């Protein structure tokens, strides 16, 4: 990839990051109280998250339908769309751990980073722990290789 394309690629990723963050802010998903209100089925339930996912998947399904037909990205790079279909233990155990943490705090990675950017101290603690968790995962990967 040439220098110009590299700059364009980095720039596009930055802008897409901002766009994704704005989507999280507008939808209210950067507010852990709103996430927990969705997860609290037995309480005062706030179904907003279903509409967020619905809107995102509506656009996403068109995009992935188009993307699967392509052999190259717009920037000319290879397409890296996962092809695995097998169900394994790490998928289930990892997702369960993720769900427990998500339910404890009301934060998942994207909203936590946006909240950190707005100067939330509590988001900083969460993000530090989250990165530490990711680092721990990388250590277990090293040993198994």
């Amino acid at each position: 990839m040439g220098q110009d394309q590299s700059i364009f690629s980095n720039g596009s990723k930055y802008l897409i990051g901002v766009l994704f963050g704005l989507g999280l802010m507008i939808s209210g998903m950067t507010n852990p109280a709103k996430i927990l209100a969705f997860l609290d089925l037995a309480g005062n339930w706030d179904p907003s998250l279903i509409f967020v996912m619905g809107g995102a998947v509506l656009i996403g399904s068109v995009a992935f339908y188009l993307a699967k037909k392509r052999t190259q990205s717009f920037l000319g790079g290879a397409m890296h769309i996962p092809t695995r279909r097998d169900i394994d233990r790490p998928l289930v155990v990892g997702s369960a751990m993720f769900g427990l943490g998500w339910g404890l705090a009301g934060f998942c990675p994207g909203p936590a980073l946006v909240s950190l950017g707005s100067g939330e101290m509590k988001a900083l603690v969460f993000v530090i722990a989250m990165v530490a968790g990711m680092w721990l995962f990388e250590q277990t990967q090293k040993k198994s290789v």
Partner: protein
Amino acid sequence: MMIDWTSFAPGPASAGGIILGIAAALYVLINGSILGVSGILGGLIGPNRTDWLRRASFVLGLLTTPLWGKYLFQMRTTAVIDADYLTLFIAGLLVGFGARYGSGCTSGHGICGLSRLSPRSLLATLTFMCCGFLVVFLIRHWI
């Protein structure tokens, strides 16, 4: 089940969701890969640091979103975080490790995975949603 009509906002939720979908669409069409926040962030600290600058650019985009929101659109983030610091730390460890171990989070499995009809992502999404329902039920209605 009682619906909280004062907080439930289907309009902004759908609009925000469509923007998230557009972001995921642009990401895969322009760059050819999945917009998954945990994967992009995790790749920054992994042993094979490929695409470091592009990953960092995306993460920087998320971190600087509140600035754009504030100065361009007069938007503010309202975050009500009830959890104490210890809970947040434990939750962060679980979210970070779990997302990497399970190959994705709410964006990669939830948005992108469901969009491309991936059976792995569907199972992952159902799993983390059910665990989220369970832990909130235990904390708010059991203990």
